[in-house]
């Protein structure tokens, strides 16, 4: 299954790059990520609870970042294994500046799904995959916002200045 699309993050490219390389941000952005730990080989091991509506599955995922060219592009490889199936994906993420305050992330890759989901889910698979990717970027955008534009005060009574 081909997966491609793009997402605009309202932050400068350097910041977006840093956050994409930051395991903590990734952990907070990956849908249903319960735990994420580095492996000795530089990859990460994550436990993901992925759900679309009533369909829920737990996956043990290995996430690897390949050929990073800072701050432009890298390849990401995900291998997830869960009860009754697996999801493997690999794709290229490209970051382009969209003015000074915005970054366009373009992704293009292939995902391979096996198990029950593959055998009965073809009708919904593409749309579900898009939903998960979009959940990731939405969460990621929030994380980046929080890092790039931290609220001036931690006092909740004082609103952060609008930008």
């Amino acid at each position: 299954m081909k997966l491609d699309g793009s997402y605009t993050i309202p932050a400068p490219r350097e910041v977006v790059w840093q956050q994409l390389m930051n395991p903590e941000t990734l952990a907070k952005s990956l849908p249903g990520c319960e735990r994420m730990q580095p492996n000795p080989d530089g990859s990460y091991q994550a436990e993901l609870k992925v759900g679309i509506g009533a369909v829920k599955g737990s996956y043990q995922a290995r996430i690897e970042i390949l050929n990073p060219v800072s701050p432009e592009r890298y390849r990401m490889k995900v291998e997830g294994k869960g009860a009754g199936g697996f999801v493997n994906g690999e794709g290229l993420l490209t970051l382009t500046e969209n003015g000074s305050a915005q970054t366009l992330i373009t992704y293009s890759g292939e995902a391979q799904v096996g198990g029950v989901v593959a055998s009965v889910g073809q009708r919904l698979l593409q749309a579900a995959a898009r939903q998960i990717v979009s959940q990731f970027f939405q969460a990621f955008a929030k994380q980046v916002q929080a890092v790039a534009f931290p609220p001036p005060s931690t006092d909740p009574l004082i609103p952060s200045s609008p930008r």
Partner: protein
Amino acid sequence: MATPLLGQRVKRKEDPRLIQGRGHYVDDIQLPGMLHMAFTRSLHAHARIGSIRVAAAKAAPGVVAVYTGQDIQGQLGWVPCAAGIEGLKVPRHSCLAIDKVCYVGEPVAAVVAASGYAARDAADLIEVDYEPLPAVVNPEKALAKESPVIHEELGDNVAFVAKLAGGDCASLEADKTLKVIKARFINQRLAPVSMETRGVVANYSPGEDLLTVWSSTQVPHILKTQLAIMNSLDEARCRVIAPEVGGGFGSKLNVYGEEGMACLASRRLGRPVKWIEGRRENLQATIHGRDQINELEVYVRPDGKVVGLKCSIIADLGAYHQLLTPAIPTLTALMILGCYNIPNVFVQTTGVFTNKMATDAYRGAGRPEATYIIERVMDLVAHELNMDPVDVRMKNFPSPDDFPLALPTGVTYDTANYQRSLKKVLKAAGYSRLRKEQERLRKKGKYLGIGLSTYVEICAMGPSSRMPAGGWEFGEVRIDPTGKVTVLSGTSPHGQGEETSFAQIVADGLGIPYDDVTVYHGDTFQVPMGIGTFGSRTTAVGGTAIYQAMGRLKKKMARIAAHQLGVKPGELVFRDRRIETEDGQKSIGFAEVVAEAIFAKQLPPGIDPGLHEHSVFEPSNYTFPFGAHVAVVEVDGETGEIRLRNYYAVDDCGRVLNPMLVDGQIHGGVAQAVGQALWEELVYDENGQLITGSLMDYAVPKAHQFCWFETQNTETRTPVNPLGVKGVGEAGTIGATPAVVNAVVDALKPFGVRHIDMPLKPEKIWRILKQGVRN
């Protein structure tokens, strides 16, 4: 005198139990202490197996045993293949994968537990480490040098190459007066989808050293032999029973790893073990059908006479051979000439391994592909030469006087009159009226299509010299002291209705009521030998064996009766429960003769007591049923949706024993054929995942998708068996697919279309419509 039953519409003996839900299919069998088996199956199309962690499954509630491929190595024989083709490569096929998996759904581990629920729960706890390998799902890619090799030990993915040649195709290339038509057809992969999935109960009794196996099978005797071999048991220690079987369509003409595993588990545990296949398992791991790519060159004279046919068949066999996997595409080659005596033919069949489930016999088994090829070709000829498809066919039919007709493919057709069935179906359909309607509608931008198919099939399989393991059949007739008759058959019908037609044969022959006859089949302890039900052979071959056994019995009874009546045996006839002289002057009751034969008070010298005779019928040839079908379709010019509007069929299956059963076979066959033409398709993605893995995506046709089928018969008897019966089980499936495709292509003629590959999904049609009307 009672009317003969043969040729009559006689209600089925099978039905009373089935309409009341009182038949017993495998899953209905309950035995004391029975355990349930579930499988963990490969998620990958091609991968090495690393470790398999079974501890959690073993510890799960109710679990009695867990097996992996390593555990059974040397304990259980390979899954057998019976096809004999020169140079055939046969990969080792374990009941559970050992170090490598080669298709999605391949069994990797088996769990045996106290209940089906517990077994499923535990099977899901088994963790398998896979090291994925590149998969190849396209047979043409599998032939390429750079392709992954599925069975490294076999060198490449070519299982066999078989050539069939007749006449001299090479000489045609030089003849510039001939038109050469080229085509490429894809015959898609299908699932048989019998409504009952597979299932098996194996019960090994250590005391008796006896393995009893109930399996949803079409071939209990073959299964018995093979399971005995796989389990290293004497055949006398192995009994197979095919109980009620909920359809097979070829998919249960096989020996499966799961059957082997149930036996092994029962032998080890000393308890009965049941396995019932789920529908997703059925779509993944029960044999598939078709899956061929056909490249053709057709040589045609300007008048429409076809003089040569060259065809390359690439047959996608899947990852392993099941019982007859490689043999199926060779039947396509054998029947590729259809109803036409084309003098020059060359067919090269290449069987290719791919990372998919094995293909094997699915209703028609190789012959629907042949009919599809030749009937599409006839329409292409009509298209290229701007002739009516009827005229092209008439031009190429042999004359009824030409039979028996030896073809360059090496087969000899028994009897036929193709002209008669075509004329009859054209009349039924109102062909010329339809053509006029089509013309009218086209002017209004509406697309009506009329499609023909004139087919011949090869069945009543068959002469033992040409079958993998015998083509004969066994029949026995015995009469009990009360005068009631028991018939045993080595065939194993599962819906076709031979309990009825066999009883018709015997009741007529013995002159006794239909209700006095009981037919048994399917139990290897009851029926000493047999081959089974497939290849439209049951009535033609199995029925003949019974007919012959009955003949022997009648001879014996006639001798006893003649002795008592003081006449010659040859003067006696059997009718109305009496055995009498033709004029009725001398007569004795059937029951009296039975009593005499069994109680043996005054038997004539040289006659043994008892009334039981058996016969093994060995056919001298196949039979060749034929027919002509017309499909009428409407195509929605905006969306590409197709509606089957009318369907007309004239079939000739030789002598008709029970027209109701013949109709039923034709209807069901046509429905499956229309299903292939319009809706059905098994699709693997490029990684080898079966993505039409449930009946939510694999479109088994529903009632409202069909029109009324108008069926008729002609009767051209065969001399191959004394009943004159040819066979009808696969005729509809073989005949109908090209009729529907020809109709749709015909509807789209204004768009310059030559061919559309099946299934004819609306999107494909829309893409053609979108390009607009040509000329």
